[in-house]
């Protein structure tokens, strides 16, 4: 079913790992000059991901494409930087999406059911103007759709039929992008027992790249928040986006900074949080954060914008049932911390 060209396109496939394993190469053997394209491509993948958030889908050397992928992952796991791992996973999964969406349904079905273990049915249904190629089992769909933001991914806006969600070919590719992302994250998170000598210098170079593109390594991944579980969905989402190196608009940053400062997070922590942003300028950020915190200018501490404002600016994200009872993210935090620290349900179950 799959050709070598496919493995080069989709090096995350089980078949690709199998192919690499069968070659039986040790890392030390890779130091041979004929393998330098592999190591260069491994580094290239990382650099593209860190600098542009994209990994190119052009394939010039199939072998290098297949072999470089596990090495990029290995280097990343040795670098041990969560932000870099996330960014790489995102970039690689976007690459996969661009390639997958051009595949025919047979190949998509094959990949989905063998690598991602999807329960997928072929469909040939036209409802309204939309043509559905597949029906995907509800748990598989939800597992991936919950990470997607546009309203069309919300379950009430889907066609759900006897436990299967109808999806178009392009949507199948998009959901697979999510699978790829989690798979890579998981993969680059495994810690290898020893650092192969050959990779030592490459790992150091990768560290340099991370610092160059994402700023200095942070001591904490998350700002020290008194009760992280009590943060509203919008704030969590903003933090995740920054972490993944996505661009967050001004209103989002303002919300995040004012929220955190108001619940007592230190300014240092807030500044540090903004570091993964692509257009991070430490001086500017520090200035803004201090301004919001009331250290500069008029000394008025800014409060967090109201939910209604956040809704119009698209900052509100998947509001939950607590959101229905509050009008400001700060009240969300207050209300949820109360429930959490009370230990146990606020009202008795009936």
């Amino acid at each position, binding site marked *: 079913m799959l050709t070598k060209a496919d493995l080069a396109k989709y090096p995350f496939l089980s078949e690709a790992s199998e192919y690499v394993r069968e070659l039986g190469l040790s890392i030390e053997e890779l130091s041979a000059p004929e393998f330098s394209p592999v190591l260069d491509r491994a580094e290239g993948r990382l650099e593209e991901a860190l600098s542009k958030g994209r990994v190119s889908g052009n394939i010039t050397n199939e072998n290098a494409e297949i072999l470089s992928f596990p090495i990029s992952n290995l280097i990343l796991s040795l670098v041990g930087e969560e932000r870099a791992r996330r960014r790489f996973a995102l970039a690689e999964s976007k690459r996969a999406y661009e390639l997958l969406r051009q595949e025919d349904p047979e190949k998509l079905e094959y990949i989905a059911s063998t690598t991602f273990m999807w329960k997928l049915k072929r469909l040939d249904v036209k409802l309204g103007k*939309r043509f559905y190629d597949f029906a995907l089992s509800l748990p598989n769909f939800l597992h991936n759709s919950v990470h997607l933001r546009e*309203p069309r991914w919300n379950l*009430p806006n889907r*066609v*759900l039929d006897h436990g299967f969600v109808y999806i178009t070919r392009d949507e199948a590719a998009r959901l697979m992008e999510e699978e790829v992302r989690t798979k890579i994250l998981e993969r680059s998170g495994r810690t290898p027992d020893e650092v192969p000598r050959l990779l030592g210098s490459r790992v150091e170079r990768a560290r340099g790249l991370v610092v160059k593109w994402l700023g200095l390594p942070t001591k904490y991944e998350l700002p020290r928040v008194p009760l992280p579980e009590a943060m509203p969905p919008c704030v969590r989402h903003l933090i995740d986006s920054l972490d993944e190196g996505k661009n967050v608009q001004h209103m989002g940053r303002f919300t995040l900074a004012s929220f955190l400062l108001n619940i007592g997070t230190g300014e240092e922590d807030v500044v540090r949080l903004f570091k993964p942003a692509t257009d991070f300028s430490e001086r500017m950020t520090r200035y803004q954060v201090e301004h919001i915190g009331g250290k500069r200018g008029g000394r008025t501490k800014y409060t967090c914008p109201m939910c209604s404002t956040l809704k119009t600016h698209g900052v509100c994200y998947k509001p*939950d*049932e607590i959101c229905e009872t509050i009008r400001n993210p700060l009240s969300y935090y207050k209300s949820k911390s109360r429930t959490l620290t009370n230990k146990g349900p606020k009202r008795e*179950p*009936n």
Partner: protein
Amino acid sequence: MVRHRAFRDPSVLLGAIRDLIPAHTYFSTAYYQEPTAAMEEKGWKGADLVFDIDADHLDTPCKPSHDKWKCKACGTVGNGGAPRICPKCKNDRMEEQTWLCDQCLRQAKEETTKLLEILYSDLGVEPSNLRIFFSGHRGYHVHVYSTQLQVMGEEERREIASYVLGQALDPQLHELNEVNVGGVKVIEGPQLGQPGWRGRMVEGIYDVLSEEGERLGLSPAQVKTIKTQDRDEFFKRPFWSSVKGFGLSTWKNLSVKAVDRRSAKIDTVVTTDVHRLIRLPGTLNGHTGLLTMQVPRERLDEFDPFRDSLAFHGEMRVRVKDAPQFRLAERQFGPYLNEEVELPSYAAMLLLCKRRAEPVI
């Protein structure tokens, strides 16, 4: 509260219940590696998918006549279901005084029936993998047992809850649209018989049109046309463009109403919670003295919570402070005000549990 207990078999559990004599007994819907360990160390393996339909969350017209609320912060009081936040001081801590009511429970049963239909035909739940329980108070619980769904996290469950509620459903994403056919503007949309919310939305539109037509601004003639139409016939035609004066925005509003009509009013919090404690079937509900019990699927229609869940026999004397009228079994009781009465034990227990009466010894 006694928590984090595990039992090897039902007889040990029964023994513990007899020792403790708890007013309320709950079990966790979650499966754990170590059920008796501290919360963080239990090792969560999964949880049944549960739905809770309770009169507390329903908007029944009878509520002001039997329910009261009081703001714990400022003392404001009112009739009916408690508002989410106090209209006076914006606090969200409310004290409620509720009462058992036929109409409320009929509504809860209707919501349960709608829920079951969605579970069967949309979620593909096998009837044999689901159980229905009367909560012993004001509602019903539905438990779904499925290894596939068990492992879902909060976010996935939230999606399922919104689906059942038809929350933020956008008719346009179900392709309700105005299209241009050879220079003529035509409205197109979902059709009867299509899967999921598409078909259900159309069914709901029929309900809404035939019941609320006049309020929706339809002319009496239009209402009549719709009422006299055979439903299936009407919806076979391209009906979206067949009602004069109905544009896209009217249809959109109607669709949203239709979805609301057909959705099942579950409590999102319960469905979303992956560590939920839920009443143990076969035990007494300490708020009422009624039995929390399984209701077989095929008996849901005829199930009468105020007849079939009575647990106590015999007679009892109680001193009633005040109580509205109520029915249990085939008998009407009350209203009572500061009087001593001899009642069947099940009725006396209800008043005692509701703190409306005291025992006379």
